[in-house]
């Protein structure tokens, strides 16, 4: 990895980066000054649109377009929710940004709020990130003391309050409407869409929900321009991605690389390849909900559209590498258990489908599989896919179906006996 490609993680090696003094020394809050003092909100929004900044949370929706859905004229307050409920298994990128460089997120938050005309932002952070949450609160206090958050920011008359809200550990609260319900103090049950949060969101008001990494990119787009940002990545998918590589590699960790870097390069060069004597069995490319890829499929370039074309998804960029030492049955069991455990239970196919799948997989893992179990898994997954209230159904169905289809031969010994 060349040092030049690092944008978000450029200063992560510095000590005390989370302190505002360090951040300011490194040129921090220049983007806020530029945006608020020199640009109109529309200009900021246009620039982010042009930059093709796609959501880093998993769905890959262009952030600028999302902002533009918020009605300009409304008699309700508008809200910005920062989704820091990083819960997708295999994903651990946002925590690095939050822990090392909380002011970068705050700066992105201020600019996004300014672009959309928002005066109240919530950072919904997963409860397990306690140290990080405290760091964020300290950083917010520092930013407030320096006049970057609060009333009349930089004398522009623009006000913004930012609050940190801790989640209680449910995967579903990372789903944007589940997050809103949770933030309102209710059960984290996703809402029926439409209406979409941009028109009816938090407290029935227009709301923007962005991932941490997405917002962290915004200051750089303001400082360097959309054209520069696109140069760092792909034409329809600008900038870099922070890939979190875990599993059977020599150097697991986070790697900030241009959007469009090949998966093979990330695994075998950046992450140092597999341990000696091991062979690659499979790769989960974008968090656990992304369909599993076989070794022959890893030449895919890591941008939203290419990974989708390869039958999986870039998702959160959490790459899980599986080698020949791991029985695929164990992977299947983990996936099935996770989604059955995290299904909120609201809609029928997800509540009962994930549980049924989990029961079958448990039985298979216990050596009591039947000849038609794999077919049943595939059929049940297809009865969940695209029929649930929120994306959790798809998130559960896709990896199950992919594992069952691609590893049928390996799973077959688990299925003795007749139907």
């Amino acid at each position, binding site marked *: 990895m060349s040092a030049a490609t690092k944008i978000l993680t450029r200063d992560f090696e510095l000590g005390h980066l989370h302190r505002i003094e360090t951040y300011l020394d490194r040129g921090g809050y220049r983007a806020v000054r530029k945006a608020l003092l020199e640009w109109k909100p529309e200009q900021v929004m246009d620039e982010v649109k042009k930059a093709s900044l796609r959501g880093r949370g998993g769905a890959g929706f262009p952030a600028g377009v999302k902002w533009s859905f918020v009605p300009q004229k409304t008699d309700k307050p508008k809200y910005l929710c920062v989704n820091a409920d990083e819960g997708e298994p295999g994903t651990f990128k946002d925590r690095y940004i939050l822990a090392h460089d909380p002011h970068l997120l705050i700066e992105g938050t201020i600019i996004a709020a300014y672009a959309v005309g928002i005066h109240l932002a919530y950072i919904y952070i997963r409860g397990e990130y306690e140290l990080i949450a405290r760091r964020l609160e300290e950083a917010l206090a520092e930013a407030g003391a320096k006049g970057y958050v609060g009333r009349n920011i930089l004398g522009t008359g623009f006000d913004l309050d930012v609050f940190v809200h801790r989640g209680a550990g449910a995967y579903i609260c990372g789903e944007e409407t589940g997050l809103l319900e949770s933030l309102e103090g209710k059960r984290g049950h996703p809402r029926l869409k439409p209406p979409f949060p941009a028109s009816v969101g938090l407290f029935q008001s227009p709301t923007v929900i962005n991932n941490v990494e997405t917002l962290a990119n915004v200051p750089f787009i303001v400082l360097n321009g959309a054209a520069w940002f696109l140069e760092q990545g792909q034409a329809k998918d600008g900038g870099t991605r922070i890939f979190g590589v875990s599993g059977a590699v020599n150097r697991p960790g986070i790697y900030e690389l241009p959007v469009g870097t090949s998966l093979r390069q990330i695994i075998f060069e950046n992450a140092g390849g597999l341990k000696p004597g091991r062979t690659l069995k499979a790769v989960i490319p974008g968090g656990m909900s992304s369909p599993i890829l076989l070794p022959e499929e890893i030449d895919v370039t890591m941008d939203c559209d290419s990974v989708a074309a390869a039958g999986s998804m870039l998702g959160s960029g959490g790459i899980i590498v599986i080698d020949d030492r791991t029985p695929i049955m164990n992977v299947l069991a983990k996936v099935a258990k996770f989604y059955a455990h995290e299904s909120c*239970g609201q*809609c029928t196919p997800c509540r*009962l489908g994930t549980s*049924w799948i989990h029961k079958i997989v448990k039985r298979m893992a216990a050596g009591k599989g039947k000849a038609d179990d794999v077919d049943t898994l595939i059929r049940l997954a297809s*009865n969940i896919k695209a*029929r649930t209230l929120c994306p959790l159904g798809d998130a559960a169905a896709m990896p199950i179906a992919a594992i069952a289809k691609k590893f049928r031969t390996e799973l077959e010994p688990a299925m003795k006996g007749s139907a």
Partner: protein
Amino acid sequence: MVKIVLDGQPLEVAEGTTVFKAAQQAGVAIPHFCYHPAFVPEGSCRLCLVAIEGSPKLELACSTVVREGMKVATQSPAVRAARRGVLEFLLAEHPLDCPICDKAGECKLQDYYQEYGLTESVFREFKEKRDKKVRIGAKLILDRERCVLCTRCVRFLAEITKTSELGVFERGIHSEVGLYEDEPVRSGYSGNLVDLCPVGAITDTEFRFKTRPWFLTKGESVCPLCSRGCNIFVDYHPGFPRVPGSAKVYRVRPRTNEAVNGPWICDFGRYGLVEMQRTNRSDKLVWNKGDRPTELSWNKVLTVIGERIKSLRERESAGGVSLILTSWLTNEELYLVKRIFKDGLGAAHISFADPVPGPADGFLLRAERSPNRRGAEEMGFDLRPPDVEVLARDTRILFVFGPHLAGAPGGGAWKKALDKIPVKVLVTSHLNELAAAADFVLPSAFITEKSGTLTNGDGRVQRIAAVARACADVRPETQILIDLAREIRLGDGALDALDGPDSVYRLLAKDISFFGGRP
């Protein structure tokens, strides 16, 4: 208006209509559990998915609003497959205890399985074990194994009664409906949860294990327990020959009428009506002659009473006949009383004894606990309670309709007064201490057992139909009054031509303009 195409048929519906309602207007039923017209769509059961041209996924009929030119398929293979998928999931964990389930026969899960499912079960796993008998209200039992988590019960209490006693607890497969801190459902509308439940998860202790829905005949009537006049179904065993024994009412359910009660009724009416239909019924014609009561035939008793009235007319021109009425009488019955006793006989006193008003609940239940006071008012009656002393002084023959005089304020004053009146005729559907004080007790039909009309507090004239007959000796007041009029020979030709409530109403509508329009 918006033009759409539904299953190949062009259809025009109002702007803002959902696909579900558009289909309904076209007579196309879309299966559903969580959707209910009175609630905000929740979209959780996923059974109402339909195909909309141009949409990559199936969409919810319950919440998708029609757009100009929208092409909807409600029966495409993909749609049917999706329905089958949802039903397969629900049935996999369902206890399948239909043989002992009160809902069997009118269960949506059964119906939809017949229509869309009919799949072989491939579920080999252990079903979740859940509580099967949770008392969640005075008359409500929750069976969590049968529950499909449509949350209609939860949303009824949240959106309609705003009491929110129920919630969903736990998550995923462990999700369950439950009470907060075990505080039971105290809403006065709890019975609606049983009707709302599409499966047998919430059952009614009053109905549980008593009969099967397919034995029941569903009669349409109006609840008499307050002046709201909620439209109801009265579900009853018709008796012999369909089932052994006499007819019996098993339950009362709301019959949707948006102008009166919407889709709900209160527990006071629901349970009160069944209880009243069953208990303390007056079912024998009795003549308290001397010390021992004698049972008579209708012909004999009407002749005897008719003779008394005729002889009184011959002796005393001032009348001497008085009546204590009740506004539990139908418009037709009240009109007959007016025509026979007020206009024909020039009755000395006509007063009313009605149930004492109770508290109104701000929703459906009103303070006035009689079904037809408005009708009586429109008929020109003075609804004052009787002045029993004046009554005793002027009256030779007293007719008392209904049992409510016994509960009238003033304690037992009516008893002393009645002692002074030579002939007392009680026409009642229910027995109480009044019966002992009367000379003749004529068993009359209860509100669910007679036909006619009632005028609710808002002046809405509503039909009731005879849906159940308690016993062979019981007669509706309409018939008693028509027969009595013939006995007395008043010389009112119009009365002689009457043959039932419909003919009475025609006469009434001609006579009193308020009743001019047909109900």
